[in-house]
C-alpha cells in the first residue's frame, strides 16, 4: 500500500512505495496503485525510493510504466536512490530516463521550479 503526500500549491504528489524491495512480487500492485492516482489527475509525481534497498527488472518496468502513463502531460521524478538501486539504474541506463534527486524536498523544489 503506497503512501502519498500532496503539495497542493504545485500539484505535486510524493509517493512512497513502502516496500524494501520493488520486485516481480509487488511491482504490478505498486504500478496499479499509482495508475489510480494518475488517472485521478495526479500527473506530477515524485517517487521516493529512500526506503527501497533493491529493485529488479520488474520494478524498473513498473517505473517506466508510470512514465508512459503520465506521458507528455506530466512528469515522474525520483529521489532517495540507494547504492544498489543506483547501480541497477546505471546498468540499464535508467539514470538517463529519470531525473533523480537526493531527497524529497529537492525533488519537490525542482519540480515546482519547472512550473514557472
Amino acid at each position, binding site marked *: 500500500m503506497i503512501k502519498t503526500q500532496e503539495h497542493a500549491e504545485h500539484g505535486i504528489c510524493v509517493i512512497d512505495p513502502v516496500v524494501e524491495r520493488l520486485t516481480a512480487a509487488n511491482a504490478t500492485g505498486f504500478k496499479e496503485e499509482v495508475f489510480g492516482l494518475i488517472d485521478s489527475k495526479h500527473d506530477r509525481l515524485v517517487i521516493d525510493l529512500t526506503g527501497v534497498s533493491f529493485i529488479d527488472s520488474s520494478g524498473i*518496468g513498473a517505473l517506466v510504466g508510470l512514465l508512459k502513463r503520465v506521458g507528455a502531460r506530466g512528469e515522474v521524478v525520483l529521489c532517495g536512490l540507494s547504492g544498489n538501486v543506483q547501480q541497477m539504474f546505471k546498468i*540499464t541506463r535508467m539514470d538517463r530516463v529519470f531525473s533523480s534527486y537526493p531527497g524529497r524536498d529537492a525533488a519537490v523544489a525542482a519540480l515546482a521550479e519547472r512550473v514557472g
Partner: protein
Amino acid sequence: MYDELVSVEGLRQEEPLGVVVADDDALQRAYTSAVLRKLGYTPIDAANGTEALELIRGGAAQILVCDLDMPGIDGHELAREVRRDSGDNYIHILMLTAQNQGHERELALEAGVDDFMAKPLDTASLTARMRSAGRLLQRERQLATRNRILAEAKEQIEADLRAAADAQRRLLPAAHSRVGGCAFHSAFMPSHILSGDMFGYFPLGDGLTGFYAVDVAGHGVHASLMSVALGHLLTADYFRAHVFDAVGNPDPAELVRALNARFYTDDGTEYFTMFAGILDETSDTLHFCQAGYPSPCIMTPAGASRRVGDGGFPVALLSSATFESGEISLSEGEFLALYSDGATEAEDPAGRAFGDEGLAQVLNASTTDPAAIPGKLVDALNCWRETRPLDDDLTVLVCERIAAP
C-alpha cells in the same frame, strides 16, 4: 477436470455414514442401534472401548457414539486415542453422559468429544445430533473431494510446466561445446521449472562467432514464453542478417535495434535485457552490445580481470532507446564469463546478496579451468542459498578462447 470441481457442490449423497456404538450396557446399545437403524445408518456394536477403537482404526465408521463410563478404556480415553490417530478422515464423536456429569463433559471436550447426549437417551435428541454430525461429515467429504481435485489439477499443471521446461531446455546448446576457436561452457537454472532466460552461440563464418544471453523481466510462464520466442528467433541466420553494419563490419547494436523495433509496443509491459557478442578470432576482438544485461568479466589465465561495458538500455522497454556497439580485446587463453543477475542478486537466508564479491571468488578460483566455472558457480549459489531454490532464473555462459595448437 475443472468441470468436476464445479460439480462437487452438488455432490451426490455417497455411501451411508458408518456409526460405531460403544456401550458396555447391551440393552442401551441395542436401543441406540435400533434408533440409528431407523434413521438410515448402519450401526456397528462395540461392547467396550478397545473394540470400538479397533473398529474405528479399521475405517468402519465416521461417527462414534460412546458411553462415558465403560470398563477398561472409558469414553475420555477412547476419544483421546481416536484424536491421536488423526488420519485423513475426521471422526465425529457423540458421548452419552449422565445428567449430573457436567464436569466430565468439560474433560470430554478437551479429550476431543464433539457433542453430548444425556441419559436416558431419547430418540429426538439422538436424531438431532446425528443429523448435525451427518451435515458436518458431508461437508468434510465435499472439501476432501475438492482438495483432491485441486491437488490433481496442480499436478497436471506442473506436469505441463515440466514438459514446457523440457522443450525450453532443448533449445539450449550443450553444456560444453566447441565453436571455431572457442569453447563454450554453460549452466541454466530456472527459479521455478520454467526460465525467463535464454542464450545461444553459433559460427558466423570468416572466423566470427556470435553469441547472446537474454533475461526477460519477471519470471515464470509469462517470461519463459518470451524467452522461448527469442530462442527460436535468434538463430545464426538472424545474426548474419542483422549483426553487420552497412559495410559489413560486426555491429551487434544493429541486431539489438532490430529486436527493440520488433518487440517494443506502446502498451506493452514485457521487455528483456541482453548481451550480444561477436568474437572476431582473427583480430582477437570482441564486438558487443550490452542492453541492460550485467557487465560480463574477462579473465586472464594469470587471474587478472576486466569488466565489459558500463550499461545500456534494455530491449523493448523504450521506443527511443539507443544502442551502441563496443569493442574489447579477448585473446587466446582468456575467457569471458557472462551471468544473469540471478547470480549476484541471490540472497542467503540472512538477506545478503551473493554480489560481485561472491562471483569474483568463484572466477578467481578457476582461472585455469574455465570449463568448471558454470558448475562451480551453481554449487556456490546453492551453498549460499542453503539449498533454497533461487528467486530468479540463472544463466552462466563462459566463452573460452582456446590457444591455437
